[in-house]
């Protein structure tokens, strides 16, 4: 008995260790991004984010000025030893010391020793620029400069909300109705319609873009919220219907029979029984759809465009880097800000998440 328990403990320990490693590997890029988002752009170019951790690094303790007429193409004499230029460029280690060029032109040589060090130069500038809007210094004809402030994330945050919330609720509502019908109502063509909907899962959205855009143009739906709700709802429906069908069809049959006996209508059954019983499934598919719409770039790009009154965050962020990508360092901060809402949604709904994922498969 005792032996078994220790075995169990051991395997649990192993599982935890493996999970810890996986978690670490998966979160390292995110941590790197977070650290970088607080570093000035010039520093990011100079050194990696991991240098914020204490580590041994070469630090200059002394500078040697070699004679001005030192020929770099000949062996170079440093403290009685000769080295080639290539060696001094890469840094040559002698005992505890390292020689490396500081400035070849001035024949200035750094003598370095290993010391503990860590980068401590942080800034919130990136976040300020992303949240408050970038500042553009525009030269005026009289020689002065005018500072124009670009728009911050505020407007696009609300735009994204205005797109995402309805684009999550609408398809889930419709799909739940549909899933209930497919699972428990008898009507002609039920199976074939269901198969068609499932088959729609494999249609890539790219092939639908231009035809839908043509229809939208004639209907005047381009660049409107209604248009993008419709697009997201349509693209999301097959998967959500399938997912909800799995959850709803697993509910025990007796439940519906007794409800029917008591004289409940289909709508009552749906709203009083199905909805409460499928909360885990609803929560997890909500997270999926919410994340998908929140992070969506393509559908917004085509149907919504980048007019400031409707522009969503993913597009705003893409534009933040500037016409020629000169402000790439803002992406780190912008990525974190745009992650906040999905994270909040995820943590709010996460207790249902795993249950919902397993919901269809384990019961049965």
């Amino acid at each position, binding site marked *: 008995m005792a032996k078994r328990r220790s075995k169990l403990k051991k395997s649990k320990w192993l599982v935890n260790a493996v999970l810890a490693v996986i978690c670490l590997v998966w979160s390292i890029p995110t941590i790197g991004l977070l650290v970088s988002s607080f570093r000035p752009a*010039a520093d990011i*170019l100079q050194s990696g984010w991991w240098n914020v951790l204490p580590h041994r690094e070469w630090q200059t303790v002394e500078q040697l000025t070699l004679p001005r007429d030192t020929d*770099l*193409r000949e062996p170079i004499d440093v403290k009685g030893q000769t080295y080639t230029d290539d060696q001094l460029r890469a840094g040559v280690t002698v005992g505890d010391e390292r020689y490396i060029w500081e*400035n*070849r*032109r*001035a*024949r200035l040589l750094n003598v370095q020793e290993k010391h503990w060090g860590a980068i401590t130069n942080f800034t919130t500038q990136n976040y300020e620029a992303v949240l408050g809007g*970038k500042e*553009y210094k*525009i*030269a*005026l*004809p*009289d020689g*002065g400069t005018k500072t*124009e402030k*670009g728009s911050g994330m505020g407007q696009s945050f609300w735009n994204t909300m205005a797109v995402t919330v309805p684009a999550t609720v609408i398809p889930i509502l419709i799909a739940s109705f549909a899933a209930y019908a497919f699972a428990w109502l008898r009507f002609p063509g039920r199976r074939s319609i269901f198969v068609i909907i499932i088959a729609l899962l494999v249609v890539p959205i790219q092939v639908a*873009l*231009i035809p839908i*855009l*043509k229809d*939208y*143009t*004639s209907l005047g739906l*381009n660049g409107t919220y209604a248009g993008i709700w419709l697009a997201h709802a349509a693209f999301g429906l097959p998967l959500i219907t399938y997912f909800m069908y799995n959850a709803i069809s697993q509910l025990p049959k007796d439940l519906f029979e007794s409800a029917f006996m008591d004289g409940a209508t289909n709508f009552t059954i749906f709203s009083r029984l199905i909805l409460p019983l499928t909360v885990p499934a609803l929560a997890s598919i909500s997270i999926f759809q919410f994340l998908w719409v929140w992070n969506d770039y393509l559908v917004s*790009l*085509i149907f919504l*465009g*980048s*007019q400031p009154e409707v522009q969503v965050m993913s*597009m705003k962020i*893409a*534009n*933040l*880097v*500037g*016409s*020629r*990508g*000169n*402000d*790439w360092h803002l992406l780190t901060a912008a990525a974190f800000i745009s992650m906040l809402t999905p994270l909040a949604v995820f943590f709010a709904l996460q207790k249902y998440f795993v249950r919902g994922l397993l919901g269809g498969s384990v019961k049965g």
Partner: protein
Amino acid sequence: MFGTVLALSAALSACGGNNETNNTGNTGGGTNTTDTTNQGGTNTTTPDTAAGDSYVAKALNGDYKGTKVTMFGPFTDADEQKFNASIKEFEDKTGIDIAYEGSKEFEATISVRVNGGNAPDIADFPQPGLLKGFVKDGKVIDVKSFLTDDYLKKQYNQSWLDMATMPGASGDVYAGVWARSSVKSLVWYNKKAFDEAGYKVPTTWDELMTLTDQIAKDGDPAWSIGIESGTATGWPATDWIEDIMLRTTTPENYDKWVSGELPFTDPVVKNAVKKMSDIWFNDDYVYGGRKSIATTSFGDAVKPLFDNPPKAWLHRQAGFITSFFPEGLSADSFDWFPLPPIDAQYGQPALISGDIYAMFNDRPEVRAVMEFFTTADSLKTWIQSGGVTAPMNGADPSWYANDQEKRMAEFLSSAKTIRFDGSDLMPGAVGAGSFWKGMTDYVSGTVDLDKAMEEIQAGWK
């Protein structure tokens, strides 16, 4: 077929002297609405270059008040601010709302929009090669349907007009109006350090190579080069090749090369690439050595010039690179010289790029806005804030923000040979595909010269 369209007349007549006339000819109906918000002492009266019944005159008269013209283009950010500032006065006076929408995905999106029937009224194309497809399909409105030949000739030099003429569904179409241009054949340097070190601006290729060698002897790599640009990695290398092509062969050969008649595998092209490799592949000449070229972002590549002390000394890039300069750099601490001639007989050519505005919907207010964009006034505040050169005549040299930019305009107007960025004119599969990729492979050392040229040439098939 491409060749006939792209052929540019070699000579651009010097035009600086006539610049005043357009500004002073203020005789249109628009003066009564002169804006009173007179910022920074600029003269805000609008010149009326066209006849009194032109669309601009009607617009200034208030005929199109309350209408909206949509524009779509690739520039965002600071450029968008500058653009909006430059059209503000026109909007205020005419009551036309010009709604600009900038997207990083312009090239991909414009096709979807046009084919989906949702074309903007006006679109800004930095690559005439991309516009050509739409013109061929008959989607673009011919500018000549509302602007006369005489008027256009007055506004633009013949080369620009030739570059805007493209084959349409039925006959040649004047596809759009040139709104901005940028000079590419520039070598930037840190003026203060350059002068202190006692270097002289080279005027021939040999002098340039001597200088490069001198700097190497003094202990620094002369050049800082980077061609990394995300999915567009390799484009700065194509600019180098184009610039060297113009300096090592005839303009006619260049046009043939751009149109696909002269293959990349031809010795003429290979010779140009070799000239470039002389600098690029010498680890003493390039900051970080050859291996760093393909992984250094083109925007970061200029920065070592302004380190103290400079880590590199020369950087060849178009005029826009000033927006990548470290902040707080004063205008007297940097300068440029034109990439020197290689073969004296081909002189000092200028490689340029530009943005052409094409019109997709024909409404009177759109015509008025298009006509407005042919005038130097539509670019005035942008020129003053820096970063562009005017393709149209009539821009006053005194508008340019600093001496460097004024000299760019002069360089452009005095150059005997002017050619448009070849890779922007080639079909996308080559100009924005195999050319970029082939050069990147060549520079990073995965393929040799012959192989790289074959790889690029394969894009034409």
